[in-house]
C-alpha cells in the first residue's frame, strides 16, 4: 500500500507538519472567479480554529484538504504528502488512513450499532486498525468510555441515541487508530452550550493524547478560546 510505505519514509517530516497549503484556490467552473484561501500551516498535534461567515468557503476548504475536491491552483500537503498528486483511489485510501472526520449532523451510519460505527475507519484502513492499541475493539471501548457513552449503548442502534451522544460517537470514530489529522465541520452547532463545551474538551484532550492535529471549522466565535491557533476565512475572490 502506497500510503503505508510513505508514512515510513516521511515519518520525521510527518511529525512536524500536519497541513501545509500554498496558494490554494478553487472554483466550481473554469469561468468563475477563483476562491482564494490563505496559506495554512499546522504542526502535528496543533489545534486550529477556523472561522468565517457562511459562503467564505469553509466547507470547500475542508473538501480540498480531504482530497474530495480538486483545487484550481496551489498545493495541499497533508502529513507530508501532496494529496492532489495522488490518484482518486489513493486519495480515498489516504483519507481513510490519516484523517478522522466529524460533521455537523448525520455523522453515523444508521444501520450500524455504536461500536461498528466507531470501528468503521479500521475496516477501511489496515493502517489504522494496526495502530489501534491494544486492539480495534479495545480502543473503541476505551474511547467510548472516555467520551462517557454508557456501556449499554454500545450495541444499540445509533438512531436511538441523543444528538450529543451521536456527536461523541463520531468523535470516537475520528480518533480511533490515531489518525494524523481530524477535520471537524461545525460538529457542535447542533449541541446546547453545556454539551458543546464538554464535547470540545473531550475531543481536544483525546486528540492531544493521540498526538492528532485538529482543524475545527465553526462560525461560533465563542469557541475560539479552546484553541491555540485561530484563522479567519474571508472568502476572497479573485
Amino acid at each position, binding site marked *: 500500500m502506497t500510503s503505508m510505505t510513505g508514512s515510513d519514509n516521511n515519518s520525521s517530516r510527518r511529525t512536524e507538519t500536519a497541513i501545509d497549503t500554498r496558494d490554494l484556490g478553487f472554483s466550481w467552473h473554469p469561468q468563475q472567479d477563483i476562491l482564494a484561501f490563505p496559506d495554512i500551516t499546522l504542526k502535528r498535534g496543533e489545534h486550529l480554529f477556523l472561522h468565517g461567515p457562511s459562503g467564505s468557503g469553509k466547507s470547500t476548504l475542508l473538501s480540498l484538504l*480531504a482530497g474530495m475536491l480538486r483545487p484550481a491552483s496551489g498545493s495541499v500537503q497533508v502529513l507530508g504528502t501532496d494529496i492532489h498528486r495522488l490518484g482518486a483511489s489513493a486519495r480515498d485510501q489516504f*483519507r481513510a488512513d490519516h484523517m478522522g472526520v466529524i*460533521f455537523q449532523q448525520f455523522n453515523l*451510519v*444508521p*444501520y450500524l450499532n455504536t461500536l461498528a460505527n466507531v470501528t468503521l475507519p479500521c475496516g477501511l484502513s489496515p493502517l489504522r486498525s494496526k495502530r489501534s492499541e491494544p486492539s480495534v475493539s479495545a480502543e473503541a471501548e476505551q474511547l467510548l468510555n472516555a467520551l462517557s457513552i454508557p456501556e449499554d449503548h454500545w450495541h444499540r442502534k445509533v438512531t436511538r441515541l441523543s444528538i450529543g451522544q451521536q456527536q461523541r460517537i463520531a468523535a470516537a470514530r475520528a480518533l480511533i487508530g490515531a489518525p494524523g489529522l481530524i477535520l471537524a465541520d461545525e460538529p457542535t452547532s447542533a449541541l446546547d452550550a453545556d454539551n458543546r463545551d464538554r464535547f470540545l474538551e473531550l475531543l481536544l484532550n483525546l486528540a492531544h493524547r493521540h498526538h492528532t492535529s485538529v482543524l475545527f471549522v465553526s462560525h461560533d466565535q465563542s469557541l475560539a478560546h479552546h484553541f491555540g491557533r485561530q484563522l479567519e476565512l474571508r472568502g476572497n475572490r479573485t
Partner: protein
Amino acid sequence: MKARLALSLAFASLWHRKKVLALVCLTLTLSVSLLLGIQYLRTEVKQSFTSTISGTDLIVGARSGQLNLLLYTVFHIGDATNNIRWSTYQSLKDDSRLKWLIPISLGDSYRGYRVVATDENFLAHFRYGQDVPLELAKGQWFASVFDVVLGAGVARSLGHQTGEDIVLSHGGGRTSFSNHEDTPFTVTGVLEPTGTPVDQAVYISLDGMEAMHVGWESGVAIPGRTLTREQAEGRKFTPDAITAAFVGIERKVLTFRLQREINQFAGEPLSAILPGVALSELWRLMGQFERALLGITGFVVITSLIGLIAVLLTLQTQRAHEIAVLRATGASPALIASLYILECVALAVVACLLALAIGTAGIFLASPWLLANYGLQITLRPLTSTEWALLGSVPVAALAVALIPAFNTWRQSRRLGFGEAADQ
C-alpha cells in the same frame, strides 16, 4: 478486508431495512417459485405424459393417422375410423414374433367414461410410467361375462364400491338415452390410481361387450331379442371385430419390420404405430403452449426485479447521509456502489432459496393429493441442469438491474465534497 467490510455493511443495511425489503423479497420469492414451479411441472407433466403408455411396442388399429389412433386408443379421445376383423386379430395372435396382444374394443360409455372391452392380457401386460404394471386397489379383475373393473378416477368421482351393479350406456357421450338396462354389470374390482387415462375408463370382458349387444344389431334394443344375465351366463361369444390391439414384440429389433408388415397387411387396411413416437409428436403440438407459459412467468420475474429496483432507487434518497459519511471516512465510490450490487444479489439469492424451500414443501405436500384428485403424478426429484440454470439466472439478472442504482451512486459519490449529501 474491504470485501469483508462491504459484505458486513450490505448485510447490516439489508437487516436495517428489513420491513420494506421483506415485501420486495416476498414478491421476488413468489415469482421465482412460479418460474421454477412451471419449469418443474413442465418437465414432470411431459414425463408423465410421455409415459402414459410404456412397454407397448406397437398399437394396431384400422388404417388412420398415428395421432388419431393414439388419441382414441390411449387417451379415449375421438372415435375409431373402423374396426379390425376378429380373423385379423387371430392371425396376429398366431404370429410367433408377437409376444403378447391386448385386444381393445370401444364404443360404449358409462356416464361419460369410456367402456373398454379387453381381456386378462390388459392387466398382465399393460405398462405405464417407468414400466409400472397395473394393480388392483380393491377386488379382482373381471372373470365372468357381466363383471366390470373401474379405473381409479371413475370409482372416486362416482363413489362406486365393489359389488355394486351399474348399467352401461350404448354409444359414447355423457348423456346417452339408450342404456343396456337388461344387462347390468357388477363391479368386481377397482384399479390403483395411475395418473394416466387408464383411471378414466371402465373395463369389461370382450364377452361382456358381445353379450350386452345381442339384440342391438339395429342400434337400439329390440324387445325380446336381448339377453338377460341368466341367458348370457355360460354362453360362448365370439366378437366379429375389435377396435385396436396393443402389441408386445419378442425381439425389439423386429419392431420396424413388423410395423411395415402390418401396414402392408393384405387382408384389410391396418395401421401400426410406435406409441413413443406418436406421444412425442403429440407433445410437440402442445409444447407451444407450455413454452408460452414459461415465457409469461419469465416476464413476471422481470417485473418483480423492476419492482426491486424501484424500491432500491427510492431507498437511495434515504441513503445520501450514509454515503456522505462513508465517502468522508475514506470509502471509495466503487465500495459504495458495490453495496447496492451486494444487497440486490443477496436479496435475489434469499428469494431463490425461499422459492426452493416453498417448491419442495409444496410438491411434497401436494403430490399425494394431486395424484388422488387429478391423477397427476408429480414426484420430488433433484433439479435438472436447466432448472438450476433458470434459478441461477435470477441472481444474475438481479446483478444486472442493480447496476442502475450502483452506477448512479458511483457517479454521484465521486463528485461529493466533504460532508456533502448527494442531492436527489
